[in-house]
């Protein structure tokens, strides 16, 4: 492998990893802390992207589209959480299955509204060019995604270590009833977390629309990645999400290049292995479940 290729593959892996982190940080929050395997997270991503598309078609900039996509999905998340998930709160399987049902509906409605053509969103004009990095041509936008990933990681780190929220949510998973008997509005906290996760998914959808394009089926594909990230890293762990994202990004990038014929297994084989030898992922803690 040439040096140039190595640099390229690494950059690709890392920037793709950053995109995955943007998505899976919200996923890991919901999945890890609330124990909701939100299989509609991919739909949130795709719908966020489509909302961004509509905004951009209406002449708005990428940035407005990104914020709009995020907010729209936050609202959707609120409705889903309050209207549906709240009714089955605390029952793991109904929660998972409900989100499966929702993902079917969302996918079909998105198809009805936005059609099936794959659509690549325009890059923000400020980051439309390419840069030369040690002899390699590289798109600026990917570096932007990397930056956003780092920013979000820092933000979440502060959020997690400076507030009681994390502990409250984990306590809520252990024994929701008891949390409320301590005077904490556990439903509000859960809704907040869910909405925040949805917001991140919606935002990532718009970014992903530039990075990967939007099309029916993108929801499932990206969800697979998020699942693998969270499982590799360990549930509900921020470090896990960071390391998992990078790892998946790099495995994907180098794996496709080095062993293209195994690319179908690239994602799932390491995941199965990790689960067998470290059933709780790389950073998974011994939690009660």
């Amino acid at each position, binding site marked *: 492998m040439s040096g140039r290729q190595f640099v390229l593959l690494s950059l690709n892996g890392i920037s793709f990893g950053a995109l995955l982190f943007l998505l899976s940080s919200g996923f890991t929050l919901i999945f890890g802390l609330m124990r909701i395997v939100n299989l509609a997270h991919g739909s949130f991503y795709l719908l966020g992207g489509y909302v961004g598309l509509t905004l951009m078609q209406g002449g708005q900039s990428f940035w407005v589209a990104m914020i709009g996509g995020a907010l729209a999905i936050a609202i959707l998340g609120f409705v889903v959480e309050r209207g549906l998930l709240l009714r089955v709160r605390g029952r793991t399987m109904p929660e998972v299955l409900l989100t499966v049902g929702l993902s079917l509906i969302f996918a079909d409605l998105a198809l009805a509204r936005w059609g*099936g053509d794959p659509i690549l969103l325009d890059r923000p004009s400020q980051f439309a060019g390419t840069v030369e990095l040690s002899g390699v041509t590289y798109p600026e936008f990917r570096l932007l995604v990397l930056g956003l990933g780092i920013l979000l990681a820092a933000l979440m780190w502060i959020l997690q270590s400076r507030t009681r929220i994390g502990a409250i949510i984990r306590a809520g998973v252990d024994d929701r009833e008891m949390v409320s008997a301590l005077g904490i509005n556990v439903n509000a906290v859960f809704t907040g977390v869910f909405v925040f996760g949805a917001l991140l998914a919606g935002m990532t959808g718009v970014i992903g629309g530039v990075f990967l394009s939007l099309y029916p089926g993108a929801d499932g*594909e990206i969800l697979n990645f998020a699942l693998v990230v969270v499982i590799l890293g360990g549930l509900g762990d921020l470090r896990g999400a960071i390391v998992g994202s990078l790892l998946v990004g790099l495995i994907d990038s180098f794996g496709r290049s080095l062993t293209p014929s195994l690319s179908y297994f690239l994602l799932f084989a390491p995941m199965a292995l990790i689960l067998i030898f470290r059933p709780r992922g790389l950073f998974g803690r011994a939690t009660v479940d």
Partner: protein
Amino acid sequence: SAPGGGDDEGGGEEGPIKVGVIVPTTGVVAAAGTDMLNGWNLYWEINGNEVAGRTIETIHEDNAGDPTTTLTKARKLVEQDGAAVIVGTLLANTALALAEYLDPLDDVIGLNPAGSADDLSQRGVVDNYVRAGGWQSSSPTHVAGDWAYEQGYRKVITLCQDYAFGHENCGGFTNTFTDRGGEIVQQLWAPLGTPDYSSYLSDIDPASADAAFVLTVGADSGRFVKQWEDFGLKDNLPLIGGETTLEQSLLRAMGDEAVGLQSFGHYAEGREDSATQEFVDEYVDAYDQLPSYYSASTYTAAQWFAETLEAEDGDMSDVPAFLETLKGYQLDNSPFGPMKLDEHGGTIATMYLREVAKDEEGRLYNQVVEEYPEVSQFWNYDPQAFLEQPVYTREYLGEDWPESCDQFASDCPLEGE
């Protein structure tokens, strides 16, 4: 005695003819499926749905791009609705499933406008499943391989989608290109739904080859084309695209990164012939977008069927006879250009070298650079010898075949070397 309720007959001599159209309008390939449905409907809207005194009743069923659903829907159309004709489907695997279902039926006619699997007109012909407006995956790329050599390219990198359609496309290119003496210096395979092409692109060293042959489909195409430019390859390495990498339904979502790229296909919406342009204009009027080859294929299938029916005076009661007429029919003015079938049921049609351009309204379209009329599915090989080879797969791309000139029907390129 065999139990069962009655079918109501939808073919025969008189009364309405029921036609079942199976195309995906949900699922991952819904967009192209919708184009197909539009093309079909457009024909009847323009020409009226009465042919030789018989009304054509269309019943659409969605197969979501899934082979098993295709079977389910075919059963429903034939057994429940009494369809005498089945039109569809889009993806090769669904077309193969449909072929499997149609094979034992002797009173149902299948029209195959888009299922391009080579074997449907080569080693696995199903008599009553007729390519009408359809094509073979490897037909355009046979031309492409030959052309690439003509251009003076000697070393080519191929990057194709890793499934049957991709294998057949790549096989076509590889076979003819290597016959001429070209060399495939690198073969890359990307699975369907590759989110990020950068890994493959970083593998490509522009200095190591004269050109790259690329075949992608669906959403992968958009990502590929964008990244091709992003990683600085557009200006450094000539790209030879396959039909689906730069076809109209995908161009709708692409930008300047696609302009100027060349590809081979059996359809070009920019073809200046009136048959094509009339179709394009009508389609734009009706659906406010340029028609893709998917739209053209069902439009042509409708035309093909209608004209056959006309020729048979509206009589479908003798299915074998009807099939014979159908297969023998020659279209001189389809949106694809002239089109007919060979004795195996393979489409003989014009192939185009196309280049993406932008029209006054800012829409991207494929304009014709070069036409290759009457291209046979066997290229210029001897059909018998060709059929003795396996279908193109990842393992067999025809690189070392043929070995001698007796396996050519005409113009043996081996002699020159």
